[in-house]
């Protein structure tokens, strides 16, 4: 019951943030540019087209009403037409989002899958060499620009060792339509194409390492701090006194509560992760939403850019909602206290 009300509260908070986000985007897209209709249509538009767009956007009406129209468009999934592709922005984003989603998902798994164990190792051998090593790794991971790491990986794996592909999601010669989920890793299994699965994994590896490094370091650092914190708690001391074996103590009683702070931070880190995706997708020519965003920005393609910003924001809010629910499961105390 209390879990349900916790969920409702979190969901309401998310809606509130989304409303705020839509206001920010409205201001950037409709208020900041002198003539949003001309900007959205591009340089080659005729005066008639501009006039039509102006009345469509309701630019002569009061600002509040314009915002209402804007929201109406959003709820219908109407983000306007892209200048670059001459297609509805929604279609473009739907097609490119899967690639970004796959990359980000893989990155989060990597960051958690390696970051948390590294943190545990560091906490277990606190102030010994593994701790120092992990700390160094975390600092370097945090301060290496993701585009720089991406380039280094590209040189090393692509040019020096000739090990892994350095661009795209699949070889161009490979024909495969990811028609179920858009995620190659899942659709290739459904279609029984193991060759596609293998290639998809090979292509995913470098970009997700480049994107995951900073978050991985952060995870390791927080897991370490949080494990050390928990190990000082009374009930762990008690467990030790009762002679509960060490492996059980670490995995069962310490790991679960220690998991909460890294998980929560993961949610906030997610914003910088999306930001990082913009550069990593460019370096690896990853056909995702972020690369689409960059291409459209350089073309001053207003509708497309706003669509990408909006979807990034929604993505962030949804991931945080999911993480909150997860945290609520892992740590019952959170359900009552709330986390903010």
């Amino acid at each position, binding site marked *: 019951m209390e879990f349900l009300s916790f969920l409702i509260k979190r969901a309401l908070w998310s809606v509130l943030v989304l409303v705020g986000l839509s206001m920010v985007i409205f201001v950037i897209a409709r208020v900041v540019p002198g003539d949003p209709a001309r900007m959205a249509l591009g340089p080659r538009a005729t005066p008639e087209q501009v006039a039509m767009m102006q009345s469509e956007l309701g630019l002569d009406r009061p600002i509040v009403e314009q915002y209402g129209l804007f929201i109406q468009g959003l709820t219908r999934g109407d983000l306007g037409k892209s200048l670059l*592709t001459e*297609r509805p922005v929604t279609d473009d984003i739907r097609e490119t989002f899967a690639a970004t989603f796959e990359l980000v998902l893989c990155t989060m798994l990597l960051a958690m899958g390696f970051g948390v164990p590294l943190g545990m190792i560091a906490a277990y051998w606190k102030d010994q060499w593994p701790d120092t090593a992990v700390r160094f790794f975390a600092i370097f991971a945090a301060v290496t620009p993701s585009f720089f790491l991406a380039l280094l990986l590209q040189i090393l794996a692509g040019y020096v060792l000739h090990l892994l592909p350095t661009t795209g999601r699949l070889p161009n010669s490979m024909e495969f339509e990811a028609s179920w989920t858009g995620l190659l890793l899942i659709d290739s299994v459904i279609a029984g194409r193991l060759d596609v699965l293998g290639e998809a994994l090979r292509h995913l590896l470098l970009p997700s390492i480049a994107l995951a490094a900073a978050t991985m370091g952060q995870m390791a650092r927080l897991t370490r701090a949080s494990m050390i914190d928990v190990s000082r708690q009374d009930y762990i001391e008690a467990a030790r006194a009762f002679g509960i074996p060490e492996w059980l103590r670490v995995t069962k009683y310490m790991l679960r509560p220690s998991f909460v702070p890294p998980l929560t931070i993961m949610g906030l880190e997610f914003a910088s992760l999306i930001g990082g995706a913009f550069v990593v997708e460019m370096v690896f020519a990853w056909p995702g939403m972020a690369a689409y965003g960059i291409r459209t920005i350089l073309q001053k393609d207003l509708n497309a850019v706003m669509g990408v910003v909006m979807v990034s924001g929604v993505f962030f809010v949804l991931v945080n909602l999911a993480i909150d629910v997860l945290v609520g499961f892992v740590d019952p105390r959170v359900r009552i206290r709330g986390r903010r």
Partner: protein
Amino acid sequence: MTHQKLLASTAAVAFLALGSAGFAETVVTMNTVQIFGTIDPAKISDYTDYMAAVNLYDGLISVDSSGNLIPELAESWTVSADAKEVTFKIREDAKFTDGSPVEATDVIYSIERLLRINQGPATLFAEVLTPGSVVAVDAKTVKFTLAKTFAPFLATVPAIMILNADVVKPNEGTDDAQEWLATNVAGAGAYSLKSWDRGSEMTITRNPEYYKGFLEGPIDTVHWIITSDEATVKSLAASGELTMTSQFQSPETYKALVDMGRFQMVSQDTGTAFYLKLNTKVAPTDDIHIRRALAHATDYATIREVIFPGGVLSTPLPKAFAAYHNDDIPEPKFDMEAAKAEISQSKYAGAPIPITLGYVAGTGFEEEISLLMQSNLEQLGFVVTQAADPWNRITEIAGKVETTPAVNQIFFGPTYPSPDSMFFTQYHSKSAGTWASMEWVNDPEVDAMIDEARATGDVAEQAKIYKALQAKLHEMQPDVYLLTQTVQHAMDKCLTGFKAVPMQSFDYDFTRYQWTCK
């Protein structure tokens, strides 16, 4: 890494290479640096648009690498004595991709639709063709009657792509099938559209039933990848996926590809000129002495030999138009002393002179040229601002005198094989306000000379006018003549057939290419 893994990955590469060498079919993968804007024959306008159009559609006639008109759908044509009537005889066996025959009515439909929509190639025929100008003599013969004498008319005909009227009409809707033809093809071309993602790629496949047939070792599939990123190009080449590059890669990338062993460089001189277009209506380039000073302050040899390969350009017209080229105008010389002398004669002498250098953002060689110009100009007392803009922004700022930078790096190649295409589009006041006419010449005398040449049927007479026009333009110096482009591609050694054509991108008509490896 273990030895076994290395072996496995080499094996995979070898397998891929075999695959592209044509077990089953021949695939040419090429990168191109700009997006395909449209495939609608009534709207195609730029170089990249034509790259797709010449493969998807056929015209009545086409152009070869020497600029000669060659038969395509039309097997022959006759021109009346006053050059006002042109009659085309369509090939008996000419057929569309759906198997139906190409007839005079299709030609009439295509041209009238072109004139109604009035975009793209239609600008070539303004005041020349009107509705009713084209009539069917019989099912396989069409007659064009021109409203006035227009000497370059025949040379512009290859720009007209013929639509299959029976297929297009049911899809006309309310917009003359503009929406339908934006994504569908209905023509007689040698290739069909297989997939097109406007931002990233296009794939076309061969029609085995094509009425003209193919050369031995035809290209079955052409796959264009849209990227200008050098790293991506190199990585595609290294993984065996790339067959030929675009013509705009850096010398370093070409070298890296040749070092891979699979590629060779294919270089050819073209009729495409590369200019610094000087805005003659804003400070400081409104002063003839400043314009001449800029021409003297340009290090031509370094640009041609190190930065971007090219030949000498000494007038606005490339030497490819040999019969029309004014050979009396001397080759431009890099001479800083002469530049100083010119500046001292200008009204801006004696104070720092602010000047803006514009170029296309993200093109490495243009930035290098801009830096080279800046370093020379700063020695002469200019205060330089660099303005890098994406291409579509340049087309926008070219629309107004005040927003056009003083100096602009622009490529311009013939859009049809006639000197008229070089002069009218760049210097005639009717063409003002486009990226090709950033000089804002607007000179009545120049206009008159261009019009006069257009109205003259006699080639020798035309040559005389064009030579005088070059002298006149040289006197005005609205451009710095950087070079004539030497087009370069790194191509798979198995691919042959590239020959530069002085019309748009007709050199990427893939029926002219062959795969020579078995």
